[in-house]
């Protein structure tokens, strides 16, 4: 119960908006704390019943396996009931489609139902470059080189046209965003469509690929020398002295240590535990249904 208590306290603390002097935006609005009070007050005829919290604690993998379920930490757009309804939809979709865990750097194969393709389905293989968003808006891009042309496709995880998600090789890289593959040698982004899957034993730690690639010649897609990339080398050869000086000038090394900023843009452990324990309970429930299903009698 203490977990829920603290989350309530955090919601009541948002009444400090009156100190911020931002009330011009909030002329016709309610504070979060008052809304929560009204949803649970005795005087309302629509009183929300207090739900019992699941007694289980989710295992520690769950934060990395299911980062979709943690909502966006922007306090202006957060609401308890939208997040609840969003999570329900996500769990229903996951009961129908098996979505495995993957990270930027791993190689996936996706089949999508396409009305304009022969056979009405389309299969694409590629390396995951980036994974963005939370909730029903999670998306990821896959990159591959087809007929000497680089192709990147953006997929939404919870789109109902996705038929199958296979992880051919589960691994991580030194960076979380691999957009620099656009300027590297194309052989590092080509993957065979008929690649055989590499098995990953369950419970084992995820391997980290230590490759450091050499960047190609200018012009570049982005200013790689201003992003602290570890998976790329050979940037200084292509830079002029002026650009190097500007990069030092515009660098912001203090932002890495700004703890309160990362705290405000993240969701703290108590709340994430509460959310992920709901997911764990639902997964156990689904597993029990599968086990209890009796085998068909073939006559």
């Amino acid at each position, binding site marked *: 119960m203490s977990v829920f208590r*603290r989350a309530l306290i955090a919601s009541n*603390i948002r009444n*400090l908006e009156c*100190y911020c002097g931002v009330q011009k935006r909030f002329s016709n609005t309610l504070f979060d704390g008052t809304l929560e009070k009204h949803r649970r007050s005795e005087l309302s005829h629509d009183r929300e019943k207090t739900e019992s919290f699941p007694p289980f604690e989710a295992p520690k993998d769950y934060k990395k396996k299911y980062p979709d379920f943690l909502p966006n930490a922007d306090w202006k757009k957060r609401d308890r009931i939208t997040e609840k309804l969003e999570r329900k939809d996500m769990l229903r979709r996951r009961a129908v489609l098996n979505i495995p865990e993957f990270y930027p750097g791993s190689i996936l194969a996706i089949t999508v139902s396409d009305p304009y393709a022969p056979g009405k389905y389309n299969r694409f293989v590629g390396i995951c470059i980036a994974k963005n968003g939370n909730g029903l808006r999670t998306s990821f891009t896959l990159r591959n080189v087809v007929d000497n042309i680089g192709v990147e496709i953006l997929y939404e995880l919870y789109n109902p046209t996705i038929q199958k998600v296979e992880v051919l090789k589960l691994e991580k890289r030194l960076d979380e965003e691999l957009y620099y593959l656009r300027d590297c040698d194309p052989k590092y982004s080509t993957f065979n469509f008929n690649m055989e899957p590499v098995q990953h034993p369950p419970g084992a730690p995820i391997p980290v690929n230590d490759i450091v690639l050499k960047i190609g010649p200018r012009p570049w897609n982005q200013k790689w020398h201003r992003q602290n990339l570890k998976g790329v080398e050979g940037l200084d050869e292509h830079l002029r002295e002026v650009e190097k000086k500007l990069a030092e000038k515009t660098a912001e090394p203090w932002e890495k240590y*700004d*703890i*309160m900023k*990362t705290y405000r843009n993240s969701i703290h*452990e108590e709340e994430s535990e509460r959310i992920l324990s709901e997911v764990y309970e639902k997964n156990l429930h689904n597993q029990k249904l599968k086990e209890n299903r009796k085998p068909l009698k073939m006559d």
Partner: protein
Amino acid sequence: MNKISFNALKHAYRLRHRNLKRVQERLPTGYRIGPRGRIDYLRNSVTNLFREERVEGTWDYLDETRGYAELILQQSIKNGYDHEVTKEMVDYWIVEKDIIPKLFEVLVPRFEDYDTAYTKLYTLPYVYPGGPKRMGLLELKGNF
């Protein structure tokens, strides 16, 4: 610092940071203006807090230091000095290096079993005929 897992703060913190606009003389560390100056200022005030354990000043600037001090204490209690990320963080935020052993030998055992916040911020009364600035007092609990 993206790999830190934070626990909830137990005091009322503002949902947006304050831009500390006070322009002052340059320090030997370098700048004193802008986002970099803001963090340099806060580093000094946090080390001052850990040294003196009781600090007076303007309320807004102390409110900003309070959040950082609580997070540093929280992480050092949880992980200790041998953890990579906390070591880097503590080495950056504590400017005077003779306070780092004080943190881990005196303050961490004092605050290990606390359920509440580690600091407390008081508002001091207005002193006539001074201006409308609100002065505050920030202290670590249990400082006698």
